[in-house]
């Protein structure tokens, strides 16, 4: 089965089974299983595999290195909180892409982290520079973007664009988006900044697939998925289902 060959030019799948999928409570893959899943994704032309979180420790890093050593085509990325320690652990693994997650909503910045927007912007600049300076491609994850002020997101896009970051992840961290809301948000960010968008949907209201599809219709180029839709709470966008459905969408669109 070749999962993605037909529309690789139109929708780029980022599989996060090994990162956000594994974060599903009570789930833990063995290293061999993770390597096997990554191999399957690679063989099926999945554009990018989010392989894990290096700062979690030596086992995780060993696993990511094995995935990197065995892959043929897929790009391998690692997930990091916005701090240099996390990023240094990623650099130890030598991935293709370093993904840095940035808190963007007030509840995340002020209430959860006890910080402010100046802290976010300063750290963002430092962390992007830290990874870019060592030659890495960097993508930025806007955590809780669906509850953030859209103008603040646009401001952050402008900052990272000046540092040659080309893609941001619009994360619906608590799964509260609906199609019309995501449409407006994605169009607004693209029209204002021209940056590339990766949609990261959760299925709390049973809408991860239509939200992802609507984001694609609105200009998002990348879609985050997990095998069987595993992930936090009600899970993420289901990889197999999204491919089946977006395949029909693209076929109709080409007629």
């Amino acid at each position, binding site marked *: 089965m070749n999962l993605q060959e037909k529309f690789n030019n139109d929708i780029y799948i980022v599989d996060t089974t090994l990162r956000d999928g*594994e*974060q*599903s*409570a*009570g*789930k*833990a*893959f*063995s*290293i061999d*299983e993770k390597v096997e899943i990554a191999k399957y994704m690679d063989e099926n032309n999945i554009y990018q595999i989010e392989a894990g979180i290096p700062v*979690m*420790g030596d*086992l995780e890093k060993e696993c990511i290195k094995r995935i990197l050593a065995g892959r043929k085509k897929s790009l391998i990325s690692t997930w990091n*909180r916005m701090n240099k320690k996390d990023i240094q652990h990623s650099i130890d693994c030598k991935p293709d892409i370093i993904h840095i997650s940035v808190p963007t909503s007030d*509840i*995340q910045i002020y*209430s*959860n982290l006890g910080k402010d927007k100046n802290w976010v912007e300063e750290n963002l600049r430092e962390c992007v520079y830290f990874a870019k300076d060592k030659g890495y491609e960097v993508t930025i994850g806007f955590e809780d973007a669906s509850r953030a002020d859209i103008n603040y997101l646009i401001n952050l896009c402008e900052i990272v664009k000046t540092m040659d970051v080309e893609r941001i992840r619009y994360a619906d*961290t*608590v*799964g*509260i988006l*609906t*199609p*019309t809301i995501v449409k407006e948000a994605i169009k607004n960010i693209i029209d204002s900044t021209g940056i590339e968008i990766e949609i990261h949907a959760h*299925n*709390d*209201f*049973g*809408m991860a*697939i*239509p*939200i992802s*599809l*609507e984001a694609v219709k609105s200009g998002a180029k990348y879609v985050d998925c997990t095998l069987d*839709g*595993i*992930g*936090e*709470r*009600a*899970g993420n966008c*289901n990889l197999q*289902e999204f491919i089946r*459905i977006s395949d*029909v*969408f693209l076929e*109709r*669109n080409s007629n």
Partner: protein
Amino acid sequence: MMERKLEITDKTLVVLDAIYGDKIRKKIPQLRELIKLIYTIGSNYIEITEDLYKALYPLPEGVRFKLNNKLMEITGNYNICENIIKESLYINKNIRIIGLDDIIFYDYEKIFFNIKKIFGNNIDMCIKNEYGAATAMSLEWIRAGGKKVVTTFAGIGGYTPLEEILGSVGFLEKVSLRGDYVLFPEVLKLFEEITENEIKSNMPFIGKDIFNVESGIHVNGIIKNPSTYEPYDPSKIGRTRKIIIGKHSGVSALEIKLKELKIEYKFSSLSNMLEEVRKISTKKRRGLEDQEIKEIYMKCSNLA
């Protein structure tokens, strides 16, 4: 919360009957109970066939029913408005539109606008789920002014899931409906008993594990303020949050668990314990049981 009139017709019984036939006819008392529960959680009408009416007689009291032979059903996809047979508009029956699975591929706002222009907004909208968009599109229909939707519990038969519509309208649209969502687990239990099938544990609103949490980052956030990583309060749907200790746990979660197990620990031993938790969880490919956590504590405290 806003008050708004929304009429939900649930056709779970009709679908169960079509799928399971004689098998569920042996479970009439459970079906009567299911009807009461589906009505209590928020459906305004329970749809039945004449045949079911006879089989279930006497029907539970205090519940409103709809007989499905009183409906004019129009089935179609995204181009439904172009394919309407004009004569059908003059038949003196309530109209139900069925299908529209694929409107997510198109300009669904325009499609709903055209449907309203032809039929008004007081028709039964029964969106099916072939492309995973039934809840999203039913919600968009409600947002566009639609007053009636058709559902089934857990989306059985490929319809819009009742619990997802109730949850979306209540928690996203902040519209107050009369239903008691706390009974969701009870409906699930009975539904699984009748169908003899277990529903996926991560299914929105009714999955047993949707408020289990393990990731250190999420546990930290939730301790400070649950809405950091939860879209709504689990108690509103009759569930409680459960912290799982495993590969992705952080120090805070481990401390909570040790306190829960009444274990007196030294802060300095937590990082060693966490390392051990991660190793064993990875090896066992799952979260850890309380007894396993106690053993790790003993080992790391040199008490074993």
